[in-house]
C-alpha cells in the first residue's frame, strides 16, 4: 500500500479541493431559494399595505429590497461570487454588442471642413459599417490616394502624416475608453446584478445584463448621451438639517424613541442597536461631526437602502425640491476592507454642463509631484465659469457624470480664462479616470448597437433542464454499458467518469468560468472522450491478457501501451479546442473552455485515478474481471 500512498493522497486532496470549490454553488442555490421566499412574503405585505401599487413600482421596491438582503449578509455575497456562473443563454437576460461610432468624433476633429473631407468621411464610414477596419486608417488611406496631406484637415502643418495618424488613433482609443467608462457607470447605477462589460477589439464593447426585462430602457441607458454636470455642493449646516429631519421622521415611523428624548441622549452613550433604532438614517449614513463637510459615508450594503428611503414620498417631502442626494461613483476601501461610498447633497440644477469643456489632461504636478487634472473650457464656458467660481469661493463644486459624483473639489478662487486645475486625486490612475469623465461631454462618440440578443428566463430554464437531463441520461447509460461490458474494470471506469464530471464543474467554479449551453454540450462530449480513453485502456488490457500475461503485468502494459494513442488523440482535440477558444465568440468560447478542461481532466482520471484504483485492487489480491 505504501507505494500508492502519495498518489492516493494526491487524488483525495484533488477530490476535496473540487468539493470545496463546488460548495459555494450549492450554498448559493440554497441562499437564492431563501431570498426568493423572503421577497415573496415582502411582496405580499407591500400589496396588502398598498393595493394600488403599480407593477413597476413594486418590482423596483422589491429589487431594492433584494439588493439590500443580498449585500447585508457577506456570506450570501461570498457564495454568489464563487459559484459556477451561468451564461445568459441559461439564466436569461440581454446581450449587446455596442460599437463606438468614431466617425462622428473624426467629423468633430476636422479643422476647416469642406466637401472633400465630408465625402471622404462618408465613404470611410460606409466601409467601416460592414468591415472591422479602423476608421482613421481608412480616412488616411483615402486622403493619401487623393494626394492630400492629413495636416490640411487635422493637426498642424508641421506634423507628418504618420504623426497625425498616431494622434488620431489615440483620440479614437480615448473615445472608446470614455464610452466604456460611461457604460460601466450607468450599468452599475441601474442595479443589474452581475453585469459583464468588456471591450472587444478596437471599437466594440460587449455588455451582458442578466435578468433584464425592460430592454428599451436598458438600451436607452447605454446609448444616451453622457450628461456631465457641475453642481454646487450644499453647505454642511443645510445638509445636516435635512438629514436630521429625515432621521427623526424615520425613527418615529420605525417606533424608535420619540424625537425629544432621542435628542437629549448623547449618541456616544447609546449601544449600537439602540443607536440604530433611534437614528435609522445616521446609522447607515455616517457623518463625521469633526469634519468641515457634511459628506455622509455609506457602506456598500446600505446604498440600496438609502435609495429606497429617498424614493419614498414621505421622505421626498422633507427634501427641498431644488436639491438632491447623490453618491460617489467609486467606493473607497477602508482598512477593514469594506467599500464605502460618499453621499453628497447638491443643487438639482447644475451650474454648468459638460459641453463647454474643450479638453482635459491628467498630469503630475512637477512642484508637488501629486496628480492634477487640468481642464480647458471654451470662451463662453470660461466666462460663465469665472462668474460661478467667483461667487462660490471656498465652496465645493461636484463633478457629476450621469448622476454620480466623481470628485467635489473646493473652489480656491475665481478662475478666469477657462483653464482650471483639479487637485486631490489619490493617484495618476484616478486622475486619468477624471480626465476621461471630463471629456465625456466634450467629444461625444455615439454608440451604436450592432448585435442584440435577449433570452427569456423560461427558455433559459428549459435549456438548463434539457442540458442537465441529457447529461444525466448519457452518464447513466454509458456507465451501465461500461459496467456490463468491462465488469470490474467498468465500475472503475464509471467511477473515473463520474469524478471527471465533478472535477470539470469544480474547475469551472475555480476559474470563475461561465457555463453556457454549448458549455454543457462540451461536458457531454467530454464524457465521450473519457469513455474512449477507458475503452482504449481496457481493450488493450484484454489483448495483453490474451497474449498470456499475468493480470498485474497486463494492467501495467495496458496503461503503458495505450499511452501514446490517448495522448496523441487528446492533444489533437485539445488543439481544436484552443483554436475555437481563440477564434470563437462568447458562447463558443465557453464550449472550447469546457472541452479543454475536460481533456486535461480526462487524462488525469484515466492515467492517474483509474490506474491507482486498479493497482490497489491488484495489490490487495482482489479479483478483477475485465469481462
Amino acid at each position: 500500500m505504501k507505494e500508492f500512498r502519495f498518489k492516493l493522497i494526491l487524488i483525495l486532496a484533488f477530490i476535496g479541493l473540487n468539493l470545496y470549490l463546488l460548495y459555494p454553488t450549492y450554498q448559493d442555490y440554497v441562499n437564492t431559494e431563501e431570498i426568493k421566499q423572503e421577497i415573496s412574503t415582502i411582496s405580499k405585505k407591500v400589496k396588502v399595505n398598498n393595493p394600488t401599487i403599480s407593477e413597476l413600482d413594486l418590482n423596483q421596491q422589491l429589487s431594492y429590497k433584494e439588493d439590500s438582503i443580498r449585500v447585508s449578509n457577506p456570506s450570501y455575497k461570498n457564495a454568489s461570487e464563487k459559484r459556477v456562473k451561468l451564461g445568459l443563454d441559461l439564466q436569461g437576460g440581454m446581450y449587446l454588442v455596442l460599437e463606438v461610432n468614431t466617425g462622428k468624433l473624426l467629423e468633430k476633429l476636422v479643422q476647416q471642413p469642406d466637401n472633400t473631407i465630408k465625402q471622404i468621411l462618408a465613404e470611410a464610414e460606409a466601409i467601416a459599417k460592414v468591415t472591422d477596419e479602423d476608421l482613421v486608417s481608412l480616412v488616411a488611406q483615402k486622403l493619401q490616394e487623393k494626394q492630400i496631406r492629413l495636416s490640411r484637415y487635422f493637426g498642424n502643418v508641421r506634423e507628418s502624416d504618420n504623426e497625425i495618424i498616431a494622434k488620431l488613433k489615440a483620440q479614437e482609443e480615448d473615445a472608446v475608453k470614455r464610452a466604456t467608462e460611461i457604460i460601466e457607470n450607468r450599468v452599475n447605477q441601474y442595479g443589474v446584478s452581475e453585469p459583464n462589460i468588456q471591450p472587444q477589439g478596437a471599437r466594440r464593447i460587449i455588455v451582458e445584463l442578466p435578468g433584464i426585462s425592460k430592454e428599451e430602457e436598458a438600451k436607452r441607458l447605454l446609448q444616451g448621451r453622457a450628461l456631465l454636470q457641475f453642481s454646487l455642493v450644499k453647505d454642511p449646516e443645510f445638509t445636516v438639517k435635512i438629514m436630521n429631519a429625515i432621521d427623526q421622521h424615520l425613527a418615529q415611523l420605525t417606533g424608535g424613541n420619540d424625537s425629544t428624548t432621542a435628542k437629549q441622549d448623547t449618541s456616544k452613550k447609546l449601544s449600537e442597536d439602540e443607536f440604530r433604532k433611534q437614528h435609522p438614517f445616521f446609522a447607515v449614513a455616517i457623518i463625521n461631526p469633526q469634519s468641515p463637510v457634511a459628506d455622509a459615508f455609506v457602506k456598500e450594503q446600505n446604498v440600496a437602502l438609502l435609495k429606497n428611503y429617498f424614493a419614498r414620498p414621505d421622505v421626498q417631502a422633507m427634501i427641498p425640491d431644488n436639491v438632491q442626494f447623490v453618491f460617489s461613483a467609486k467606493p473607497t476601501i477602508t482598512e477593514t476592507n469594506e467599500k464605502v461610498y460618499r453621499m453628497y447633497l447638491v443643487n438639482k440644477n447644475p451650474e454648468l454642463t459638460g459641453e463647454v469643456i474643450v479638453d482635459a489632461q491628467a498630469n503630475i504636478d512637477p512642484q508637488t509631484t501629486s496628480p492634477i487634472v487640468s481642464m480647458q473650457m471654451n470662451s463662453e464656458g470660461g466666462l460663465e465659469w469665472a462668474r460661478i467660481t467667483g461667487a462660490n469661493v471656498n465652496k465645493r463644486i461636484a463633478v457629476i457624470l450621469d448622476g454620480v459624483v466623481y470628485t467635489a473639489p473646493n473652489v480656491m478662487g475665481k478662475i478666469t480664462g477657462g483653464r482650471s486645475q483639479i487637485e486631490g486625486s489619490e493617484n495618476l490612475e484616478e486622475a486619468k479616470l477624471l480626465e476621461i469623465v471630463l471629456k465625456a461631454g466634450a467629444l461625444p462618440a455615439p454608440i451604436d448597437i450592432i448585435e442584440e440578443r435577449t433570452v427569456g428566463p423560461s427558455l433559459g430554464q428549459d435549456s438548463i433542464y434539457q442540458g442537465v437531463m441529457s447529461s444525466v441520461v448519457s452518464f447513466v447509460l454509458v456507465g451501465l454499458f461500461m459496467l456490463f461490458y468491462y465488469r470490474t474494470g467498468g465500475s472503475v471506469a464509471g467511477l473515473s467518469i463520474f469524478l471527471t464530471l465533478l472535477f470539470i464543474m469544480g474547475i469551472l467554479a475555480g476559474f470563475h468560468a461561465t457555463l453556457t449551453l454549448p458549455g454543457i454540450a462540451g461536458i457531454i462530449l467530454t464524457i465521450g472522450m473519457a469513455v474512449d480513453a477507458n475503452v482504449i485502456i481496457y481493450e488493450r488490457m484484454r489483448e495483453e491478457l490474451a497474449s498470456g500475461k499475468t493480470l498485474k503485468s497486463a494492467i501495467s502494459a495496458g496503461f503503458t501501451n495505450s499511452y501514446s494513442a490517448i495522448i496523441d488523440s487528446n492533444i489533437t482535440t485539445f488543439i481544436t479546442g484552443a483554436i475555437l477558444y481563440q477564434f470563437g465568440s462568447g458562447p463558443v468560447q465557453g464550449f472550447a473552455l469546457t472541452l479543454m478542461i475536460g481533456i486535461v481532466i480526462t487524462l488525469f482520471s484515466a492515467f492517474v485515478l483509474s490506474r491507482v484504483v486498479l493497482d490497489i485492487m491488484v495489490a490487495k489480491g482482489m479479483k478483477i474481471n475485465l469481462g
Partner: protein
Amino acid sequence: MRIFQNVNINFLAKRKIFYMVSSSLILLGIISFIIRGLEFGIDFQGGTEIGLSFQKPVDISEVRNQINSIGLGQVEVKTFGGSKGVLVRTELQVIPKNLFPKIESNIKSSINSILPNIEFMTIEKTENSVTFKFQNADTAKVISEKLLENGYQTTYTNDEQFGKNVVVRVGISDWIKENIKGKFSDNSFIVLKEEQVGPKIGEELKSDAAIAIILAIISIMIYMTFRFKFIFSIGAGLALFHDVLITLGLFSLLYGVLDYLNLEISINVVAAFLTLIGFSINDTVIVFDRIRENMKIHKTASIEFNINHAINQTLPRTVITSLTVWSVTVILFFLGGDVLRGFAFTLFIGIIVGTYSSIYVASAIIYDYSLKTKKIIEF
C-alpha cells in the same frame, strides 16, 4: 462479452469501392451546395429573430399567413421546440419606412385608450423609435408603464434636459408581436428570445468560422507530421476535409425537409463541426498509432498487412467508442432541446463519417501512397 475480437478483415482490399462511395457523396453535397446552398442562421445572416411560446398548440401555417400579410415581405416562420413554439425571422433590421406611420398611429391609439383626451405630441422619430412629449411627468410615467404592460418597449424621461417624454421602440419584433397578439387573442404567448444581429457581425462570423476550421485542420496536420510522418498528416487532413464536406453536404440537402430538424448553420453548429473534427482526428490517430506500433514491431511485414492488422486490432475499440459517443449524440438530439439539436445532428452524422474515414480515407491513402512511390515507411 466481447465483440469483434480477433477478426481478420481485409479492409484495404475494398478501398476502391469506398473511394467511389466517398467521392459520390462529396459530389452530391457539392451539387446541392450549388443548387440549394446552405441555410444560414441569424448569427451569420443578420436580421431579426424572435422565439415565442404559446400557451396552447398553435397552427404554424396560420401564423405564417398572418405574418406574411403584415408588410414585412417574405418572413420565415418555423416551429421552435414543439407545437407551442414559433420562431419568426426576417432579414430586416429596421421597420420599412412605409409601415412607420401605421405603427405610429397604432401607438397613438393605444395611448388614447389608456388615458383618453390627453394632449401629447410626437417630437422625435428615428428609424427605430418614436418619442412623445406629454404635459406633465406623471402622465408620461403612467403612459410608459401601461404601454410596457401592453407589450411595447418603452422608457420615459423626466428631467429638465429631456422633458416629460416617453420613448417607444418601433422594431420588427414589436410589429410582429403586435400582429400575432391581435390575431391569436385567445392564445397568449411569452417571448422566449429576441435577437437582432447586424450584417457586419454576420460577415465577420462567417470568415472567423471558416478561418477557425481551416486553422484547426492545419494545426492538427502539423502536429501529425511531428508525431507520425508527413503522409500520415496528409491522410488525416484529407479525412477531415472529407468528413466536413460530407456533413456539410447533408446540411445542404436536408434543410427545410423536416420541420422538427432545424438545420441552419449557427454558431453552435460551427462548434459542432469543430468537435466533429476533434472526434474524427481522435479516431484516425488511434488507428495510426496502431499502424505505427505494428510497423515498429513487424519491420519486415508488408504495409498492407500492418495497416489491415492495425485496423482489425483497434476494431473493438472503434466500434464500442463510436457507438457509445454516438448514443450520447442521440440522447442530445432528443433530449437536448431545440437549441442543441443542430449540434447533436452534426455529431450524429460526423461520428459515422469520421469513423469510416479513419479506415477508408486516412489509412487507405497511406497504403496507396506507398504502393505508388514504392517507398517503405519506417518508424
